């Protein structure tokens, strides 16, 4: 088992003929993901790595009625349109890899997702992976192994670092979810933690957060009532206020979202907070 994504998920790739879409479709297929169709307007009828391409999502889903998830590799200005298209066509899990999506477009996407009860992962995420089953995303195929740690992170490469540390320490993962680095993203810690808490194949949870926003503080409220052990790592202890550390969300503004407030909230909730990334596996094993 796993959350959101498993080996039965039928995946559509929006923007499949682009450089990124093409490359990662190959990676996903190699990992075992069931990529059943792709979409690029004007390229309908082509094939990419033997995956049929359609002009619109409606055309794809009318041909492949079992499509139940979509991953978007589309330039930022067109992401809102692509996400709306997926939702309007009835797809209820949408992973948006693209970075630099305008904030107002993100809010529009999330409002439509709320209305249609769609799970959005991202934008600006590495995606989601259930090792041994399937992945929708751009994470390297090699650093994960199946196991019982659920990992949820705001940031990409940092989560690779931690997954790599876990795997090296013999700790496999049930599902790894990247929430995305923007100020407005779809799933948040408080959405994913309950799924992991209920997933029978997840025994412990690792949360990788960062400064900015109050997602970690909100997560702490839920962690308080969790039965499964939670280990957390928060990036940005050294970041000066007012500077955006790459992610739109990772900024301490008006004194909110500091490292200290997050660590305190997580500690109070009973999570073990690692000071350094490589301490995470030890804390999980305890």
């Amino acid at each position, binding site marked *: 088992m796993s959350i959101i994504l498993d080996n039965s998920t039928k995946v559509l790739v929006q923007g499949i003929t682009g450089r990124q879409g093409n490359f990662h479709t190959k990676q996903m297929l190699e990992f075992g993901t069931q990529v059943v169709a792709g979409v690029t307007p004007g390229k309908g009828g082509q094939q990419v790595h033997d995956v049929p391409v359609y002009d619109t999502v409606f055309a794809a889903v009318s041909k492949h009625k079992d499509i139940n998830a979509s991953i978007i590799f589309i330039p930022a200005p067109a992401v809102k349109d692509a996400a709306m298209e997926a939702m309007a066509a009835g797809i209820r899990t949408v992973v948006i890899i693209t970075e630099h999506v305008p904030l107002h477009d993100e809010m529009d996407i999330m409002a439509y997702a709320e209305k249609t009860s769609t799970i959005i992962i991202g934008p600006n995420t590495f995606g989601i992976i259930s090792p041994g089953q399937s992945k929708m995303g751009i*994470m390297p195929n090699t650093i994960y192994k199946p196991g019982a740690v659920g990992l949820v992170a705001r*940031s990409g490469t940092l989560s690779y670092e931690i997954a790599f540390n876990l795997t090296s320490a013999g700790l496999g993962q049930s599902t790894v979810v990247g929430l995305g680095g923007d100020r407005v993203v779809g799933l948040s810690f408080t959405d994913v933690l309950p799924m992991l808490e209920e997933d029978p194949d997840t025994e412990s949870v690792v949360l990788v957060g960062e400064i900015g926003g109050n997602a970690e503080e909100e997560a702490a409220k839920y962690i308080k009532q969790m039965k499964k052990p939670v280990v957390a790592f928060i990036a940005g202890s050294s970041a000066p206020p007012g500077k955006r550390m790459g992610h739109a969300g990772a900024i301490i503004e*008006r004194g909110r979202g500091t490292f200290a407030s997050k660590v305190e909230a997580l500690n109070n909730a009973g999570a073990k907070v690692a000071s350094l990334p490589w301490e995470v596996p030890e804390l999980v094993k305890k």
Partner: protein
Amino acid sequence: MKLFEYMGKELFKKMNITVPAGQVFQSDEGVEKFVANTGEVVIKSQILSGGRGKAGGIKFATSPDVAKMAVNELLQSKVKDCPVQAVLVEEKINIDKEIYLAITVDGSIKRPVVIASSSGGVDIEEVPEDKIIKIPVDVHSGVQPFLAREVARQLLLQGDHFKQFVNLLVNMYKLFKKYDCELVEINPLVISGDKLLAADAKVTVDDEAAFRYPADLPVIDERTEREKKAHQLGISYVELEGEIGVMANGAGITMATLDIINHYGGTPRNFMDAGGGASTEATAKALEILLSTNPKVILANIFGGITRCDDVANAFAQVQEKLGIPVPLVIRLVGTNEEDGVRILKGQGIESFRTVDEAVAKAVELLASSEGSGE
């Protein structure tokens, strides 16, 4: 992108939000005439940091010649380390009451939020939570008049002020949408007699929406030349004040690398997220930017995924051959094509590490010895 107060007020005027009569000056030319026509004025230095009042960036004048002097004084000064390049001269208004009003984005509820308080004129952070009105906005319907009426009611506005406020807030939301804003803040919104005036304007627009900015939006850039250059390369780069030049691939891991440097007692000179999947050429250019800041040590933390270790190693080799790298170089290299990368670096005499732990420890050690050597 933050806008100067006077630019924000230009947008306000276009959206029928009333502001005090004023004019922006980049020299003293015309100041006397404007003040002669206006009467008592306030002269505000146009900088992007808050708190300019306490820092001496605001002056008052009752006569044209005093105003002219004040303008010149401000234009020759620095306020909060920023050289003042323009001043806004405005009629001085009588303040009956100050209100705080803002529209911003609340990431936790994924929508805009109207924030208001009867305690205006001070930093909203200093206002107790229970004195702050917060109303989320449904992006599908936007700020309809009913929502503005509810805010007006909670602010205890009456009669004509109530009606003016409703129009103002509805228009403020239109501005927020039209210009892709992250923040529109009026602090204070002033009740002056029968008028409601936006006495200040803080507007921040979303950098990611630059491709669709309306033509009438001014563009200002407070980044350093290096930051601009990095931005053009698609690199996220922020200058800091420490000693170790840092490069990593990914925002989170870059941030964590800075944290680890701190943990070991070092100081980072910059934040540089070279992104995922950067080519040899792009990595070489990023490295050149790093070198131009004259760091004492350079630390690269590369977790190969989409990024290939051999590409990164080749970039370092290239730069070393072309320009030379005059400072100690520490590289953490792991992941895709790791073995090739390590071999290439070894060929250049560059040591690499498998864990970030070892790499950072080494970098800080080298920093200490370089400082020790008086370099």
